[in-house]
């Protein structure tokens, strides 16, 4: 579609992508649209809906654990709930999360392109996502009930249980393909569609992390695809592959599962790290410190992160040499993550810090991710891991990394980019109140898990000994505070969508990347003219005073 074919609106402006009239209108204008921005919004609706579903399951599990013994659900229901919570949160929320929503919406804009390399493939991956979501929902309603295997589908139980493992397996399989196609699209987009003058080291840092993530998506996901497919085949046709009663080796399954699922952790966290690198310079009014180190550490995380999978299996039976190597590699992968943290902190140093909501979530990310990361290094030590394996400590650790890390940055990105995406502003004061509820509730919810896990509370148990009661009680109260914060946050954002003040200013935060140079909300093809890039991103004069934006909106 060329620019001259676009009809201008009454003000003589090009209509935004929200009002753009294409081949189809109404709802079909969205579900058949190949516009990367509309697809990003479609993903946002799906992903946030599943986030709410997953959060409800988590909330109910916490409620069950408020006191010892059976409180509101049976052991079997609890098993199904933690499986659903895991499958939904991992495959439907946090893996697609940031790349599918904000990568789709902003990656082409950040590199000065009109769309991704394969727009139709992009829409197709959204349909695959939707199919996967429907399959996951079918596992709940079909006879047999939702799977009770945990999101890891460990053999041999996943071959023998009577629950709907097949639906969960096929959901994860289809979602894997959706993820592969998004990754393939992003790699090609970054290689082929950068605006003239945008060399690799003039790319915004989030593009570097989307790029590194995309490679992991392309290269790691097929392994989980084939592994889950083999479990499904084994279940349905009784082909001997992993089941020990047919000669198979369940530990081999665990290896193949984690060969994907550990790199998947970096699929979840890398894009978040990229967005942190965008938000910090804007709200500290400083040029990012150590651009190349942050860029290369993304690649290093992607590389080393692919070589540490067996640290999930230190207790599953492995040679001493294997344990030593994987323990060492696990320590090494902490280095590039730490490099990023140090560079972010160095960027903040002597900056003019504006504690707007996106910045609050980002600073909370650094704090929570550091706790999550350091507890992760602890588990890389084999002797400690054997003590902590399968305890609530692990649950606390990965929620600090995944939710405290990726989840918080997703919220930061929502508050950072929402005015640009929809041209509407939320209530800033309420957003900050919601943040404090989320932050405080989060720590009340997950910190006790670290403590009780250290003391020996196993994970995935619906019951516990009385001495763990104070920790579980604190944790459950934390979940109420967290849920209150989430409700406030979503209420604030939805209300802003409906009746928030309209934003037409191009650059409300004073950002220096390309998305702040185009219309709010963006026009159909993002740029009226493809920009020519001459300078690196983040050219802030140090200690420049923040623009007084509060008054203008």
């Amino acid at each position, binding site marked *: 579609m060329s620019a001259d074919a676009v009809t201008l609106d009454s003000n003589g402006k090009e209509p935004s992508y929200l009002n753009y009239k294409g081949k189809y209108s109404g709802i079909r204008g969205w579900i058949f649209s190949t516009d990367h921005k509309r697809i990003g919004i479609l993903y946002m609706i799906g992903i946030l809906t599943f986030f709410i579903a997953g959060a409800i399951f988590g909330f109910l599990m916490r409620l069950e654990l408020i006191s010892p013994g059976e409180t509101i659900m049976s052991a079997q229901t609890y098993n199904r709930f933690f499986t659903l919570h895991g499958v939904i949160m991992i495959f439907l929320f946090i893996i697609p999360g940031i790349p599918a929503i904000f990568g789709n919406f902003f990656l082409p804009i950040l590199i000065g392109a009109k769309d991704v390399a394969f727009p139709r493939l992009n829409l197709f991956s959204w349909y695959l996502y939707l199919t996967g979501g429907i399959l996951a929902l079918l596992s709940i309603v079909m006879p047999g009930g939702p799977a009770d295997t945990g999101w890891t589908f460990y053999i041999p139980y996943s071959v023998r249980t009577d629950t709907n493992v097949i639906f969960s397996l096929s959901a994860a399989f289809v979602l894997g393909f959706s993820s592969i196609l998004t990754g393939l699209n992003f790699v090609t987009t970054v290689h082929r*569609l950068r605006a003239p003058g945008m060399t690799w080291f003039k790319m915004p840092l989030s593009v570097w992390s989307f790029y590194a993530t995309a490679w992991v998506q392309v290269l790691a996901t097929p392994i989980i695809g084939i592994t889950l497919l083999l479990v499904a085949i084994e279940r349905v046709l*009784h082909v001997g592959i992993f089941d020990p009663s047919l000669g198979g080796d369940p530990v081999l399954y665990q290896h193949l599962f984690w060969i994907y699922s550990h790199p998947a952790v970096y699929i979840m966290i890398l894009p978040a790290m990229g967005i942190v690198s965008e938000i910090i310079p804007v709200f500290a009014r400083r040029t990012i410190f150590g651009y190349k180190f942050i860029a290369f550490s993304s690649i290093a995380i992607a590389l080393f992160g692919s070589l540490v999978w067996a640290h999930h299996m230190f207790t599953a039976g492995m040679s001493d040499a294997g344990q030593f190597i994987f323990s060492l590699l696990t320590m090494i992968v902490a280095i590039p993550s730490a490099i990023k943290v140090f560079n972010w902190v160095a960027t903040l140093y002597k900056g003019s810090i504006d504690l707007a909501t996106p910045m609050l979530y980002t600073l909370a990310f650094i704090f929570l991710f550091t706790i999550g990361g350091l507890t992760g290094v602890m588990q890389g030590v084999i002797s400690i891991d054997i003590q902590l394996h399968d305890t609530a400590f692990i649950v606390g650790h990965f929620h600090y990394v995944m939710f405290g890390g990726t989840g918080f940055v997703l919220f930061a990105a929502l508050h950072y980019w929402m005015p640009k995406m929809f041209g509407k502003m939320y209530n800033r004061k309420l957003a900050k109140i919601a943040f404090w509820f989320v932050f405080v509730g989060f720590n009340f919810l997950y910190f006790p898990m670290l403590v009780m896990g250290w003391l020996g509370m196993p994970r995935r148990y619906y019951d516990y000994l009385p001495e763990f009661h104070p920790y579980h009680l604190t944790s459950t109260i934390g979940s109420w505070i967290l849920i209150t914060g989430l409700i406030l946050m979503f209420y604030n954002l939805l209300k802003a969508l409906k009746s928030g003040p309209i934003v037409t200013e191009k650059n409300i935060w004073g950002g220096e990347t390309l998305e702040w140079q185009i219309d709010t909300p963006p026009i159909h093809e993002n740029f009226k003219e493809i920009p020519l890039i001459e300078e690196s991103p983040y050219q802030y004069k140090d200690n420049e005073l923040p623009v007084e934006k509060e008054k203008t909106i």
Partner: protein
Amino acid sequence: MSINTQAPAEVHIHRDDIGARMGMWLFVFTELILFGGMFIIYSVYRYAHPADFHLAATELNTIIGTFNTIILLTSSLTMALSITAIQNNNRSLSLLFQFLTILLALFFMVNKYFEWMAKINHGLFPGSDELLSKSAGEILFFGLYYVMTGLHGVHVLIGMVLIAVMYRFTSRGIITHDNYVKLENTGLYWHLVDIIWIFLFPLFYLIT
């Protein structure tokens, strides 16, 4: 970041052959890794049960396997020739070679069908009493044999459909001598199917 604007980009439909080829190569990587997972399983189990794998492999028909290898290699040649033909603007020759490729793929599938049916008639299929009475290594060998050649067969079928679509595109003039990246990518896919078979054949039929 400061921006200078370029002269307005000329109005055109976005076409990027290098990009399309890059996307296809990435997809081919994912397919290789998909099969790579199964090759890992194969190597682990062969290492664990060398004698059983040896015994089970003698059950397979090396002649049919060799015949199918020749068919598939030839089909890769005809696929490559069809691309060269369209590059030389010889549409009818390209169509002929595409047709031959589909035909050879069909031969491959027919052979595969008879080969599988022979095994199944001998009671060698997943879950059969005959197979379950055998040793662990043999059960695993036949499990992998059915899954890997089966998944490869699915890829052959997908390839046949793809080439049939390309045949239609070529005859309708959508694929031409200066716009043949679709056919080229289909060719890449077809060579992938071929190269996977080149590994499957020795692993199952030749190493006994």
